[in-house]
């Protein structure tokens, strides 16, 4: 069975939990004591991932690290419809890859600010991280605004959400824990609400289900 090495409060691990839930993949979870145990820096874990980072999966004898890489693997292996990662569509594949890299930049900024403010990471430059996150949120907000103008619901063209949406969602949604308000990004907020209504959506600490009142207003 597929095994996910997981930490409940990690947005990158949450990306994988979302994908597994959307695709309804049977799996087991190995909870790693990230804080305060620092188990991800233990010799046993470093043998699994020398970068000392979560998430990691084990599946059919293979070990894979990096949230974005795992998303690609899961979609390619378990999404028989090819919805989340359309293997035969070069244009959309390119766009998805572009936003996966963008999601990594969100991790390097919004997630860093959250770790600084929330979890003892006092050695990082949280002001620079916040500034960087705001630049990215502005870009994504504008992109989503123009998507809405042509009735495009998701980050990449098509009727269905893709890996791009999963990869960008967690650290956008957790940004306030790092002191990054989303008040100036209305299109980003609307996209977050749409994301929460994808069938199979699951929550994590800090992220709630969409309210019932909003549900009616999106029809």
């Amino acid at each position, binding site marked *: 069975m597929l095994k996910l090495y997981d930490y409940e409060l990690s947005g990158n691990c949450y990306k994988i939990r979302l994908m597994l839930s959307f695709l309804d993949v049977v799996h087991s979870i190995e909870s790693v004591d990230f804080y305060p145990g*620092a188990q991800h820096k233990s010799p046993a874990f470093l043998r699994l991932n020398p970068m000392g980072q979560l998430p990691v999966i084990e599946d059919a004898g293979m070990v894979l690290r990096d949230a974005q890489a795992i998303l690609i693997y899961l979609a390619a292996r378990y999404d028989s419809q090819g919805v989340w990662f359309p293997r035969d569509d070069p244009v959309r594949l390119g766009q998805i890859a572009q936003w996966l890299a963008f999601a990594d930049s969100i991790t390097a900024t919004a997630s860093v600010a959250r770790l600084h403010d929330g979890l003892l990471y006092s050695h990082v430059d949280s002001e620079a991280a916040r500034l960087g996150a705001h630049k990215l949120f502005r870009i994504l907000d504008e992109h989503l605004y123009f998507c809405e103008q042509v009735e495009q619901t998701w980050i990449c063209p098509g009727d269905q959400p893709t890996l791009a949406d999963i990869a960008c969602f967690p650290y956008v949604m957790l940004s*306030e824990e790092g002191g990054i308000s989303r008040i100036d990004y209305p299109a980003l907020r609307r996209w977050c609400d749409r994301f929460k209504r994808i069938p199979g959506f699951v929550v994590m600490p800090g992220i709630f289900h969409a309210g019932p009142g909003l549900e009616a207003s999106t029809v």
Partner: protein
Amino acid sequence: MTVIDSIDPVVRDLWYAVAALDDLDLIDVQESVLLDTPINVCHDTSGGVQCRTELRPLPVCERYGYVWTSLGSPQTDVFSIPEYVEPDRRNIHAATIGVHTSAPRTIENFLDMGHFPYVHTGILGAEPHTEVRDYNVEVSVERDEIVATNCLFWQPMAAAASSSGADVDYIYRVPHPYCAILYKSSPIDDKRLDVIAVFLQPETQEQVRAHMMLSLLDEASTDHQIRLFQQTIFGQDKPILENQFPKRLPLDPRAETPIRADKSAIAYRRWLSDKGITYGVIPAAA
């Protein structure tokens, strides 16, 4: 006038937990802020701990697995948690987590049972079990603390060791303006209570570090399971706390409209007012 001179003397002379001893094994020198003053905590050469500002060393003591310090001259010892020394208890540092809100807002959230079914759905509460039944609140003059007793709430999964839903008994103590202790029915011993304490370190008036200490009767769960349970709960509280405005707690009784379930919060606000606390609050107009 420096910031510290403007802080009310009651707040200045209190003890504050500022670092978990466990965390000093992870990070040698813990830098943080106490009442707008940057501080650092580390081990000293003799194996003890030291805490200092840029300019001067601060008093330190070790209690409940944490380093405590003060910017002033504490008049008393850190409040007592007698259960901590019982030999069969598991004393665990669950986490230190930073939150963008004031210390008093965080204490009030800790005292509130009304949010359980909505914020901690499936764990500390579940609809339709939403009623906060009447409970008792008193201020102990002798111990100078607020005590709420006879708090009963139905919980689907009250602790890491729970296997099913149960009516759970709570007792709350607020022995310090920015610290609170919760006693709740132990899932494995019906005569004794689990202890969950939150020690807040106000970094600024609108930013805290919450140090969470557990003292449990649980022989089965691992430390990691116990911590994760508490971290999940606190992670769920975080966005709620960070979205309360104003971030400072208004002490004017007319500023916010309480319901009967908020009895303990009403007592807490009055107690802060009577003490003359001005840090992290909006004082009532004289």
